[in-house]
């Protein structure tokens, strides 16, 4: 049983290695290896789940010493507890669907083996984050996830946009990890405050922090700082404001990748990190407040951006941002279970949405919703699954999204009404933009030539869609919150609240209806309203100029600074100081040689001058 986490983790890694070594040129073999590897992981995850359901089941923790030095012992350790089992199930399960789907979606690609190698690498890294039992192991995989996401986004590296997007994703994450790593270093330091050997193991850290806080050894400010630094990592991976900019761009990657990485798993890693380090955040209300605030803001902010987006994948990306904001907000408010719960359900329906979008894109070769239309009849499976997922996202009873979202809103309602308002508003916006997408893309008539000739995707793509529909619909009923509750003392637990649920459902319905009215029925608001809306659309379509600000900083501060230093290097260090020394030396030589006038009597005079000096100095 101890082997389970290791097998779950390393099966995809082996698949990746095998593809690199043996299947570089074989599409079927590479696909088989990748899917097989993940299937193994999945089955062991299921096995672990079943084991953990046993009332006497114990948490599995297993580690090997990775670095063992006097003063620093780093372990490579895995932990199989309820959240990690749940997450590995999600990752492997959703991942498996996406892998299979990819066979169809990416079948024509020359670089399919490369693709599957990257995917397996990603699955490996993601599982590593999920299973890690300490910060270093987690950080290792944290970085690997970033790298594999970089590779996958830039899979079509010949497209400048894709290549840029990959780079951007990696860099934004790297900036975030700067804070995260410093947070880890500070935590490591804190762990030794009472004289014990320092550690980074989650369980041990939890105990020590509790003790430290209890003994008052630790200043709250410091703890808040640590919390915020760790949260910094979350900002990057989960694309929270202000580091959200990479996620929409990341849509340049292949759609299954977007589904897997930028919807279901990688971006969830940040949320998962908060959950994993909840022992830390729970001790520091200030940090929690920041987390919640940023989560809430991101939720609303991203949802507003999605309103005017025409690219179907980008809409989904903003929606992801917004939902991640929800989860972060939930965790920030102490809703541990609520956050993870939503994370799980979101993984299902968002993956489904992306795969559906992919199916459409595959058929139409366009991302623009205004070039689609009327797909309900042409692509029924895709459309219906997309609709289910949309409804789940909007939180319509009884789909999974309803339960998880309402759990979050309930927490917010009791902990911070302002955020509840924000959350509810976001729910309305969500419903509106999803409704807009659905109405424009699937209803009505074909808006472009290609949309008229669309065909349903092949079974290898549609079957995963259908399979994903199942958890999207039933995930609300299988007792996930209960499962998560197990062994988790910290956090706020709020029972189901009918009022909150009712309000949010109403708001969602209103949003959907409005969308349908505008985009399905062609309802035109009054001129005045239209003017106001057009005015409001400007900042939205420019995404509040966040990208511009970053670009400006990049060009005018960072690059100017680099150029400045480069000039310093060139003119001061090399020109003045290095070449200067050389030139002075050479110049001295040229001056000295002038003593050599060629006149013999001058030489004699110099000789005597030297001698006189010598005599004067010695005989003084």
């Amino acid at each position: 049983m101890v082997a389970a986490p290791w097998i779950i983790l390393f099966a995809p890694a082996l698949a990746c290695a095998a593809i690199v070594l043996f299947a570089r040129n074989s599409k079927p073999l590479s696909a088989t290896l990748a899917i097989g590897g993940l299937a193994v992981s999945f089955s062991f995850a299921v096995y672990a789940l079943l084991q953990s359901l046993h009332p006497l089941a114990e948490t599995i923790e297993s580690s090997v010493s990775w670095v063992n030095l006097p003063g620093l012992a780093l372990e490579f350790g895995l932990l199989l507890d309820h959240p990690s089992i749940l997450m590995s199930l999600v990752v492997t399960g959703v991942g498996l669907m996406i892998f299979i789907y990819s066979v169809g979606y990416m079948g024509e690609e020359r670089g399919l083996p490369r693709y599957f190698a990257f995917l397996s690498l990603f699955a490996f890294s993601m599982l590593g984050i999920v299973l890690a039992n300490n910060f270093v192991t987690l950080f290792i995989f944290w970085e690997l996830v970033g790298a594999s996401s970089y590779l996958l986004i830039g899979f079509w590296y010949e497209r400048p946009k894709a290549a840029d997007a990959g780079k951007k994703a990696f860099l934004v994450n790297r900036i975030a990890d700067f804070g995260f790593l410093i947070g880890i270093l500070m935590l490591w330091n804190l762990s030794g405050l009472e004289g014990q050997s320092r550690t980074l193991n989650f369980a041990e850290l939890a105990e020590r922090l509790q003790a430290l806080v209890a003994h008052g050894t630790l200043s709250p400010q410091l703890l808040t700082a640590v919390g915020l630094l760790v949260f910094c990592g979350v900002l990057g991976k989960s694309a929270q404001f202000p580091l959200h900019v990479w996620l929409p761009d990341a849509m340049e990657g292949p759609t299954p990748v977007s589904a897997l990485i930028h919807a279901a798993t990688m971006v969830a890693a940040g949320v998962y990190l908060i959950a994993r380090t909840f022992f830390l955040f729970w001790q520091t209300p200030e940090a929690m407040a920041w987390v919640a605030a940023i989560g809430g803001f991101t939720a609303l902010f991203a949802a507003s951006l999605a309103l005017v987006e025409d690219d179907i994948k980008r809409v989904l990306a903003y929606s992801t941002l917004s939902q991640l904001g929800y989860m972060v907000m939930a965790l920030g408010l102490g809703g541990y279970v609520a956050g993870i719960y939503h994370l799980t359900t979101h993984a299902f329906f968002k993956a489904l949405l992306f795969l559906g979008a992919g199916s459409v894109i595959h058929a139409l070769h366009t991302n623009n919703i205004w070039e689609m239309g009327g797909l309900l009849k042409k692509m029924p499976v895709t459309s219906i699954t997309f609709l289910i997922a949309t409804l789940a996202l909007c939180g319509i009873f009884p789909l999974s999204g309803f339960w998880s979202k309402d759990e979050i809103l309930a927490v917010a309602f009791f902990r911070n009404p302002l955020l509840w308002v924000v959350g509810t508003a976001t729910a309305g916006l969500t419903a509106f933009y999803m409704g807009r997408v659905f109405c424009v893309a699937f209803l009505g008539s074909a808006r472009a030539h290609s949309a008229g000739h669309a065909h349903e995707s092949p079974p290898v793509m549609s079957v995963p869609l259908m399979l994903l529909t199942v958890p999207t619909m039933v995930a609300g009923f299988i007792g996930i919150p209960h499962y998560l509750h197990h062994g988790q003392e910290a956090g706020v637990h709020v029972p189901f609240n009918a009022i909150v649920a009712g309000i949010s459902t109403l708001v969602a319905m209103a949003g959907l209806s409005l969308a349908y009215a505008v985009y399905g029925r062609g309802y035109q608001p009054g001129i005045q309203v239209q003017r106001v809306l057009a005015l409001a659309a400007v900042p939205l379509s420019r995404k509040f100029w966040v990208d511009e600000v970053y670009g400006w900083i990049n060009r005018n501060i960072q690059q100017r600074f680099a150029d400045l230093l480069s000039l310093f290097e060139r003119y001061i260090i090399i020109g003045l100081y290095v070449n200067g020394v050389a030139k002075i030396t050479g110049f001295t030589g040229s001056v000295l040689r002038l003593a050599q006038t060629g006149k013999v009597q001058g030489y004699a005079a110099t000789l005597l001058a030297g001698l006189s000096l010598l005599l004067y100095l010695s005989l003084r």
Partner: protein
Amino acid sequence: MTAPITLSHLLALSGLLFSIGLVGVMTRRNILLILLSLEILLSSANLAFVAFSRSLGDLSGQIMVFFVMVVAAAEVTVGLAIALLISRKAGNLNADELRNLKW
């Protein structure tokens, strides 16, 4: 003018001659005359040797003078030979114009 002549007097004379020789070496333009000034140098050293020899009651100083003369003769021979060649080649014996090698 009637004080007895001491070693210091002789050395002072020698020194004066030596200095005159130095000035000659540095200021005469003609190579031949530079050589001539060098002879003053050597001679003044000779005077010092003889003076010391006298005051020490030791003959080795005078032996040295003998050898210095031999050396001076050989030196002058070679010097004049070179001067002759230079004069043939360059047309004059101006020390200042003898500066093809410099810097």
